[in-house]
């Protein structure tokens, strides 16, 4: 803050030496970004922590402090902690997503016919609008819909069920939709990383008699370690903050309510801003904690920006 204090002094002396001018110059360029950052990230985080200790409804002028009540509710009321179990489905699904993406990224990094066509097809779903994806899969999972018809053709007709109506399977259907939608993103990230491995390394390995598995295990995996660990961070924070797919497809019915869907309802439909803030604080802490652990396990040497 010292620089802000010196700003008027610098302005008062027009023939200021260049060193003085430099002091406030960078802040001029930074001001819009910092202003937005503070207004829309740091102030909300601060307010949210404050709201979480009140029973505010978002309208009242006064906010009654309630201590830890909101947090106690988040952890004891089944409606609130259950949403973590739902995140589990998306988390497990993200492993499938990473595995599928890695498999296709590896095979499409080497000579394959119609390589660009396959790349395009696999990546394309990531670009689609979330609401459109929701509708496409609502249609797919309908009773008598696409999935049932395909199962019928394959002679698995007896396995059809209420894909979105049956609480036992609804989350799996939704997590499957999420895999369909986001595999393309992981795929492209892996593809980019694999292609940045110099080809001489593979040639050297081949001369030494390495097979495909050895090349995968000893060249590709270590070569793209950073991007694999990044995918895991994205998977964790992604599975905790799922909103579009369950909200559009089931509206959170049949046990598919995720953390963000629940927080949305609590805050904007039931006007329990205090309680919803406590949920958000818990979510934020979980995400930060997981990221911290991840950074400890796989230190990211390129974090420092300067």
């Amino acid at each position, binding site marked *: 803050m010292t620089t802000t204090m010196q700003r008027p002094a610098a302005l008062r002396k027009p023939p200021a030496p260049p060193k003085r001018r430099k002091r406030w110059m960078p802040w001029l*360029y930074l001001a819009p*970004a910092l202003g937005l950052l503070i207004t829309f990230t740091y102030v*909300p985080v601060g307010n949210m922590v404050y*709201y979480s200790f009140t029973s505010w409804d978002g309208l009242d002028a006064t906010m009654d402090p309630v201590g830890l009540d909101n947090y106690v509710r988040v952890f004891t009321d089944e409606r609130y902690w259950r949403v973590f179990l739902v995140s589990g489905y998306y988390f497990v699904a993200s492993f499938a997503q990473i595995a599928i993406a890695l498999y296709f990224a590896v095979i499409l990094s080497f000579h394959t016919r119609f390589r660009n066509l396959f790349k395009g097809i696999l990546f394309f779903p990531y670009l689609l*609008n979330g609401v459109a994806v929701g509708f*496409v899969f609502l249609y797919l999972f309908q009773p008598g819909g*696409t999935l049932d018809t395909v199962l019928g053709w394959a002679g698995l007709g007896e396995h059809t069920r209420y894909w979105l109506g049956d609480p036992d399977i609804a989350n799996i259907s939704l997590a499957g939709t999420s895999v369909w939608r986001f595999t393309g993103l992981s795929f492209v990230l892996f593809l*980019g990383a694999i292609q940045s491995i110099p080809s001489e390394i593979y040639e050297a390995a081949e001369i030494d008699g390495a097979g495909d598995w050895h090349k995968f295990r000893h060249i590709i995996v270590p070569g793209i370690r950073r991007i694999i660990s990044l995918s895991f961070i994205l998977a964790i924070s992604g599975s905790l903050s799922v909103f579009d797919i369950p909200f559009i497809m089931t509206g959170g019915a049949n046990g598919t309510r995720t953390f*963000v869907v629940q927080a949305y309802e609590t805050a904007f439909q039931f006007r329990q801003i205090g309680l919803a803030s406590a949920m958000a604080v818990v*979510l934020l802490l979980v995400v930060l904690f997981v990221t911290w652990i991840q950074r400890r396990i796989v230190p990211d040497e390129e974090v420092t920006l300067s």
Partner: protein
Amino acid sequence: MKSSVMKNPIKYASLILASIVVLLPLTVVLFAAFKTHAEYNSTGPLTPPRNWFNADNFATAWTEGRMLLGFWNTTVILAISLTGTILVGTLAAYAVSRFEFPLKRLVLGLFLVAALVPGVTTQVATYQIVKSMGLVNTPGSAIVLFLGTDIISIYIFIQFMQSIPPSLDQAAMIDGATRFTVYRRIILPLMKPAIATVAIIKGIAIYNEFYIPFLYLRSPDLSVISTALFRFKGPYGAQWETIAACTMIVILPTIVFFLLLQRFIYNGITAGATK
């Protein structure tokens, strides 16, 4: 690679299977979009439409969904947010990579920590701030949020700017250019690849964003593509052929965009994620 000859059938089978998994859900929606209501009710989802030129559903979807308005609102928000992101981001990156100043590490730290905070978590509190600014139910809400929550673009700009030799700036300043002239005449033109990357990543994200417009742009006159499509869920619940047509209308620009810019999109996404 002799060893992979044996694996080829599996490789191609898996690629074809994956392609079917990706394309089939989209194809059946395309089929449904061309069917009449009676035809939709009497045929299975995998049956192609009888008449590929039946545009009735598209016409209904286009007018009932006020899709023109949706595209217009999306375009306005997209254009302003993108321009703003690029200006705010490049200015900040210029300050960080070309100036030495106290508290620089703190500022960098603030941007870094903010990148770890998922936007959805803070939305409850952010809503109150946007409300106090009087921006709820105006396009301004989406615009300030798309500008204000974007840390990734600033990273991309900082990373890229570090690859531009500072000697270029210094040469220009010796010739009498001011700092701002350097930014505008030297840095901005050299930043084009990074600007394209940010425009692509951010453009995709804004076009597809649902939560922010759904929360802040409640009025039907402010519908963007996502919310216009979502509105079909209620009243058209039983008319899948109309919903299918509207879904196709929303997807079509993405297909065109992708086919035209394929290579840049791949590179942009990769550059964006690895920073």
